[in-house]
């Protein structure tokens, strides 16, 4: 419950953030909503001698919806996502997923940027962003660079973001077609036993394109290109769904924990993906 002592900084701009990161290297970390980092600090699982609070840094709390993409600032909270009707009209899967993350209090504080940058495979937004083909913008001493969500996750808590970089925004190509975020969990606020994000576009009576990603079934989120490919050109009938599930099962690598043994997680992954595909298809 009691975190170790730290130096606290609340810079007013990104230049201030970057200079503290540069000065203290691995000993400094940025904090957004604090609802993953503070719990880890309270358990002394995270040691942060220099804590940089991003709350006063401007320019990261906006959602802008363009004609072909959506840009979400890193400090936009889950509550903001749910509360934004224009965003829900443009990308309804975001609200559907955000409502399955944590609980009301955590959603007022927890941010999109923190969720995707955290690197915990239990977080829901990483898989969702891989499904949507999102890009993460990070800024460091050498300026900005964009990293595709599908290339961002390397292992548990290991991402393509360098220690001296800050994730500032998530950009999503305007999604089309039907969508679903299906999550199996033990209770409110739990990370998924298995979750699936699906976005499916219909062309005539068959599937024109499909994007599938899975949550908490490996040490990273899993974008299953093969699962999506198994649906394309089909009428998304039972055989096609079975093929997609088989392809997905080839891409995940769950481990046993309190949510169940590996065989159970694979079973749940299949059930959840079927539900996600069926619901996304029904909305396509």
């Amino acid at each position, binding site marked *: *419950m*009691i*975190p*170790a*002592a*730290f*130096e*606290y900084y*609340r810079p007013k701009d990104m230049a201030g953030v970057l200079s503290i990161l540069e000065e203290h290297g691995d000993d400094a970390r940025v904090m957004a909503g*604090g*609802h993953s980092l*503070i*719990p880890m*600090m*309270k*358990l002394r699982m995270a040691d942060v001698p220099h*804590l940089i*609070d991003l*709350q006063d840094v401007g320019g990261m709390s906006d959602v802008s919806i363009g004609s072909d993409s959506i840009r979400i600032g890193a400090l936009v909270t889950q*509550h903001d996502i749910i509360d934004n009707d224009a965003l829900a009209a443009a990308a309804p899967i975001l609200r559907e997923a955000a409502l399955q993350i*944590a*609980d*009301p*209090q*955590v959603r*007022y*504080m927890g941010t999109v940027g923190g969720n995707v940058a955290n690197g915990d495979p239990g977080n829901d937004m990483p898989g969702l962003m891989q499904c949507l083909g999102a890009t993460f913008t990070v800024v460091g001493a050498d300026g900005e660079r964009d990293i595709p969500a599908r290339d961002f996750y390397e292992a548990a808590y290991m991402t393509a973001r360098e220690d001296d970089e800050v994730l500032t925004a998530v950009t999503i190509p305007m999604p089309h077609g039907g969508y679903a975020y299906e999550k199996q969990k033990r209770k*409110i*606020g739990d990370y998924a036993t298995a979750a699936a994000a699906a976005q499916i576009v219909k062309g005539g009576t068959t599937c024109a394109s499909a994007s599938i990603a899975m949550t908490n079934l490996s040490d990273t989120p899993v974008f299953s290109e093969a699962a999506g490919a198994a649906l394309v050109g089909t009428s998304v009938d039972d055989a096609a769904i079975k093929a997609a599930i088989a392809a997905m099962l080839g891409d995940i690598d769950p481990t046993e924990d309190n949510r169940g043994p590996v065989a159970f997680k694979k079973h749940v992954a299949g059930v959840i993906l079927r539900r996600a595909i069926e619901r996304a298809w029904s909305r396509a």
Partner: protein
Amino acid sequence: MSNKKHYKITVNGKDEEFLAEPRELLIYTLRERLNITGPHIGCETSHCGACTVTIDGKSVKACTMFVAQADGKDITTIEGIGGPDDLHPLQNAFKEHHGLQCGYCTPGMITRATKLLEENPNPTEEDIRFGMAGNICRCTGYQNIVKSIQAAAAEMNAAQSSSSEVVGHKSVEAAE
């Protein structure tokens, strides 16, 4: 090592200034430093919501915020929602509908419920259960908490509509 800093927060309308280490969790600031002991501590993993307070219009678990983050903020706790002689409709409804037993979750529950009803004055039972899902209770089984919030919502809406009728009536008079 001590690295105390000067902080100023407003709690229930009162400005509080003090020296504290940045790592002090807001729940301890409230309880131990300011003697505002309504918000409680039920866990160390940010699940139970017994520490819920309202900060700048958000329901926040005060165990998951450092005092340094709260510097400059406006905070409302159960003590600021109503007192024994001036109960908030939610406090009265929890009393009337047996929405508490041991009382440990109640400050967080009621504080959270004030925000829920502000955002959604006419919640369904499902809205209430989902909107209160960040608050755990060991005694009630939640059923009477739902009833309490429904009753408070009904009372607050009735008070709202009667006051707007008065306003409407007055505006008619003014027009005449």
